[in-house]
């Protein structure tokens, strides 16, 4: 009888494992499926001319260079505003802010900021940057809009990374005659940097893939030339993909998938970089 139960428990455990594995596989399948599908459908469009050429024949032929460059500009622009601001805010919250009403209010604001639909950011950017500050539909306005959207991601991951640095390092550093800021700069930031970078990249990656926030603030339907100032509008990959998929009749399908593939590779590459930074830092970590 005893033996029977022992057997039975093993069977149940094996069934449990199988179920969990199945669920894990199911969650990964859509991602793999999407990537493979787009790879198959889109890879035939990829050529040097596609990547380095301008679209022509009403975007039904030619390349996507202005959209690629535009997305690059927007990502860099977003980084310029959101990274310093986000890290500074995280340092304030993790290292200086006392746990009081005011801090709780800031945290609440950040959490809520993260939950706002991206199209609302777009409208906000239109109102504030494009119209009120008169930046016009421009890279500048779009980058600022994307920055606001990216900030909560950067702030919360950076704060997390800063907090994970052991408190003892701070106490020891201060006891050796360091100021609070010296401690942060020489110990805490250095140790938290990989975690912060991961958050930054993940935040920027999201910004790079967004359509709604740039729709009213900086994205152009079609431009015959590359933007040459932050006050120019620009084409961008996600918006271009939206346009050629819905707005242009008789669009060759492989150009659509090709564009999707480029955007996917752009975003996934950033993701891989973030993962590599994180795992390298973990291996090197001294605590």
């Amino acid at each position, binding site marked *: 009888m005893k033996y029977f139960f022992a057997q039975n428990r093993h069977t149940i455990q094996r069934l449990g494992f199988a179920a969990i594995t199945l669920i894990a596989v199911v969650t990964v399948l859509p991602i793999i499926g999407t990537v493979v599908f787009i790879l198959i459908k889109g890879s035939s469009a990829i050529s040097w001319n596609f990547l380095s050429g301008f679209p022509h024949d009403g975007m039904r032929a030619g390349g996507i260079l202005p959209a690629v460059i535009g997305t690059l500009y927007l990502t860099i622009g977003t980084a310029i505003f959101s990274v310093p601001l986000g890290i500074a805010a995280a340092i304030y919250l993790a290292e200086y802010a006392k746990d009081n009403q005011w801090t709780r209010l800031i945290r609440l604001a950040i959490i809520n900021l993260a939950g706002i639909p991206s199209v609302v950011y777009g409208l906000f950017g239109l109102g504030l940057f494009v119209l009120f500050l008169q930046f016009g539909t421009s890279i500048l306005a779009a980058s600022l809009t994307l920055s606001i959207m990216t900030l909560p991601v950067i702030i919360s991951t950076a704060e997390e990374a800063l907090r994970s640095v*052991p408190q*003892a*390092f*701070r*106490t*020891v*550093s*201060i*006891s*050796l*005659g*360091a*100021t609070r800021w*010296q401690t942060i700069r*020489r*110990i805490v930031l*250095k*140790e938290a940097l990989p975690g912060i970078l991961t958050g930054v990249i993940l935040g920027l990656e999201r910004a790079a893939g967004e359509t709604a926030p740039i729709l009213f603030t900086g994205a152009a339907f079609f431009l015959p030339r590359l933007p040459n100032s932050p006050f120019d509008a620009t084409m961008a990959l996600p918006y271009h993909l939206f346009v050629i998929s819905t707005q242009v009749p008789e669009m060759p399908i492989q150009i659509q998938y090709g564009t999707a593939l480029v955007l996917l590779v752009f975003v996934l590459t950033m993701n891989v970089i973030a993962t590599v930074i994180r795992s390298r830092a973990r291996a090197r*970590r*001294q*605590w």
Partner: protein
Amino acid sequence: MNKITIESLSLQYSDGTESLRDVSMGIHQNAVTVLFGPAGGGKSTLLRCLNRLNDLTEVKASSGQILIDGENILDPKVDVIALRRKVGMVFARPVPLPMSIRENIIYGLELAGEKRKSKLDEAVERSLKLSAVWDEVKDRLNDPAIALSGGQQQRLCLARVIALQPEIILLDEPTSGLDPISTGKVEAALLELKKEYTIILVPHSIQQAARTADYAAFFLTGELIEYGEGKSLFTIPKQKKTEDYIMGRFG
């Protein structure tokens, strides 16, 4: 002449944990003064007052003063950075900073503005020798400090304090995580160090207190019960409470 004079020092933390009640004592130069007693007695709190590390903790109320060389260091106008260079501290758990052995030693000096390599090298060798760990690490000064054994790490932490050439060294149960051999090495180093420095030690056992104390102070629930020369205090304590504790009748 007392190096440190503590006058009616009282302190209460915001979370109501440990506290000090009206503590007054003088601490002698170039001697080991041991603060002992059961946990929660205020020993660590007192140490953390001496280098103002309590500034990092939420303190509800404090009064009294601590004079070091005649200057009240609890005065808000005191330069705490300079104070912490003068009053070094070794913690219970060795905490090597996430950098090499050499960088750990020169961390404080660099912050103090020392840039000359010769001076820094000199300080590394001198302090590691004084803390009796030089022979074990001299060939791998650029290795990460975390790679050292616990005992070596703690002596590195001691060396890191010595490198700043402080006048007072505070040690908060520095051997609590160490094996007897490492403990012996740390204690031997303290014996050597007291020739130059004023040492205040919270020991991790009565035995260690008796072994190392030139002067000993017994703390119970935030109050200084008895204070005197180590030899007499541990053999013929004047207070009943001290005797009970030393004899192991409570605590």
